[in-house]
């Protein structure tokens, strides 16, 4: 393969509120049985990129647990493989990753040892399918220095969360603003980049000399006139999950048949760590409408327009509406949950009521599991 992959999975997002208290955004559960990083990892393996580094830092334990074997994504090969890099103290450096560019800088040895001419750089917090080879071919064809994969957002979506781009008619990037107060373009960077490995090493080394640490602000934006940067526009589904609303909406998108078909049925597949759980069980009294239900669930009550992750137990006379119930949640009898995200491994006491009144409510309850 002509590229190595780097997945930036170090980040926290305060916009995820309680949900990232114990895990990195890249480890957020998605669509019942996946984690956010599965999408980037599966795209890598489906694009035949067989050497992939995951740079992690914030609350990495959950992510590391998920990455406990590279075989889930077919990376367990003698050649290449999956490399997980967390910050370490070295003879001349004792810092955490101070930014995305610094994270790459601190692992430059890996990049220098590779022989692949290109690097595909991406983040672990987006839900999408992509053949990176197509971007790479475009990159070569355009004689581009850095190719930025971009997407036009719908008018109602908030572009200010992202880097916004403006391109000329040849797709060359002429403006690039990171998280502007007022967006003057609805074309946003997806955080997926292709560039030559040598160039990345040079840029990152130079950046470090100047004691700058951020890939977007200190490299992309500063070099946008010096280097030829092109945008590669995608039309397919792409969703960044790093706010509560986006996370909720992305999961709910999987209730739409076209999104489900695209990710669950159309080739190529998304891979994830395999868990051995029995099929979902519906007891008498269960009423389930328009919902995703994952393996290991046991349902006694009512579930509507919701996503149940693995091993959720829904007690008698429960009502779950428009909600996302993360892995291994026990809902006691007669609970009412509407418009909520229930954090994983929670136990919701019987007769409890949680409703997200204006917006989505994040429920974190740590009651002892009282009956099984």
């Amino acid at each position, binding site marked *: 393969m002509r590229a190595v992959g780097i997945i930036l999975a170090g980040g926290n997002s305060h916009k995820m509120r309680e949900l990232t208290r114990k895990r990195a955004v890249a480890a957020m559960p998605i669509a019942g049985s996946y984690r956010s990083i599965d999408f980037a990892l599966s795209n890598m393996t489906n694009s035949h990129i067989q050497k992939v580094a995951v740079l992690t830092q914030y609350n990495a334990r959950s992510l590391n647990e998920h990455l406990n074997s590279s075989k889930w994504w077919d990376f367990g090969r003698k050649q290449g493989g999956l490399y997980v890099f967390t910050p370490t103290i070295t003879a001349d450096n004792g810092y955490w990753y101070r930014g995305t560019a610094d994270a790459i800088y601190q692992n430059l040895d890996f990049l220098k040892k590779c022989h692949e001419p290109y690097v595909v750089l991406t983040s672990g917090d987006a839900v999408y399918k992509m053949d990176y080879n197509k971007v790479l071919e475009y990159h070569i064809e355009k004689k581009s220095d850095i190719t930025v994969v971009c997407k036009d957002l719908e008018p109602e979506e908030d572009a200010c969360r992202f880097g916004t781009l403006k391109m000329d008619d040849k797709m060359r990037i002429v403006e690039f603003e990171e998280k502007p107060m007022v967006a003057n373009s609805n074309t946003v960077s997806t955080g997926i980049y292709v560039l030559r490995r040598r160039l990345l090493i040079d840029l990152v080394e130079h950046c470090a000399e100047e004691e700058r640490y951020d890939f977007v602000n200190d490299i992309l934006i500063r070099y946008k006139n010096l280097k030829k940067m092109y945008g590669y526009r995608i039309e397919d589904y792409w969703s960044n999950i790093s706010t509560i609303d986006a996370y909720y909406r992305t999961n709910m998108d999987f*209730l739409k048949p076209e999104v489900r078909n695209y990710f669950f049925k159309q080739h190529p597949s998304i891979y994830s760590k*395999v868990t*051995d759980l029995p*099929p979902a069980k519906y*007891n008498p009294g269960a009423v*389930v409408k*328009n919902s995703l239900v*994952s393996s290991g669930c046991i349902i006694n009550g009512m579930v509507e327009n919701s996503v149940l992750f693995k091993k959720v137990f829904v007690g008698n006379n429960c009502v779950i509406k428009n909600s996302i119930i993360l892995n291994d949640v026990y809902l006691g009898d007669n609970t009412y949950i509407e418009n909520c995200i229930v954090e994983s491994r929670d136990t919701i006491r019987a007769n409890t009521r949680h409703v997200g009144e204006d917006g989505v409510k994040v429920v974190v309850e740590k009651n002892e599991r009282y009956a099984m």
Partner: protein
Amino acid sequence: MIKKEMIAMLLAGGQGSRLGVLTAKVAKPAVAFGGKYRIIDFPLSNCINSGIDTVGVLTQYQPLRLNTHIGIGIPWDLDRNIGGVSILPPYEKSANSEWYTGTANAIYQNLEYMETFNPDYVLILSGDHIYKMDYEIMLKYHKDNQADVTIAAMPVPLEEASRFGILVTDGEGQITAFEEKPKKPSSNLASMGIYIFSWPVLKDALIKLSAQPGCDFGKHIIPYCHASDKRMFVYEYNGYWKDVGTLSSYWEANMELIDIIPEFNLYEEFWKIYTNSDLIPPQYISEQAVIGRSIIGDGAEIYGEVHNCVIGSGVTIGQGTVVRDSIIMKDVTIGNGCVVDKAIIAENVRIGDDVVLGIGAEVPNKLRSDIYNSGLVTIGENSVIPPNVQIGKNTAISGVTVREDYCEGMLESGGVLVKAGER
């Protein structure tokens, strides 16, 4: 020198002909069970959960599915540097090449495999039972008794005892008599086909009886050991154990899984059943769907009604379709407006719209009344049922069928429809 205290030999070569069209193309141990499992997952999971990491799987009949399923043993953590799972088919030898002619003959033909591990004990298992058992406890029992042979057995109703190998003990657990399918059983302890042998005893018996045609554990090895005064003990087991060798027992064992608290509970944390889990999107239950008392596998899409069913992964059930009391294996598609009553539908079957399965009176099957006798509709894997046909009870279908195959759009109860090239 490799040394394993106990290795397991898992007999998985059987056809399981009493499962009719379900085993036309797969060995019984590879038949799907419980929505996502295959029957062999249960003994294999028991092995790894009991700390046995060396398992020889003896295959013979239609082994492709089984071999693919087991692979190098990854799902059961049996992909080991030393030991692990090995698939042992019959093979050509310089003299005396033969198929496995009996259970003991199959083991005999793999003496060399067992010797590689220099075991103290050999556990003999069969690949067609549903149960959870800790073989380590059985081994301890074997050691405590200084036994040569320990046979797992469970009490059965006396009136059914004549179907089994019956063990008579002296009250201390030592076996005093062994009766193979006796007319007048003197005990109700039935052999489960699970044996622990001390290796020298097994080796000796296998070699001594190697000339015996169709050498079998129940018929030859056990009587031989008994006759040569070996210390033989019964390990009494009282948990859930089910031989799923007939369509009705297979159907019942599946249906028991959907009890509110099943006797055989797949949801227990401490004795997990492992299987070759596919890629795992969750299942989607649509707005119009009605689901009552069922288990449903990953990746299924349900638009119709499902009552008292075991539904495999990747199954699609169309709008307005009602499925009751049925076992649907993985990747089956059932069209819109169908009615399915008491059916076993094997993997990858396609059923058109407005098909009715399981109507009419329950009359005996015309070809094989000994197999298709419990009112079920049985459909073999990869079959296709055209739209708008009706199918009666005690029927079997296999192969790609078209409307012309059905007389006036109907397969009467007791009928069999097996297309050319199918068995």
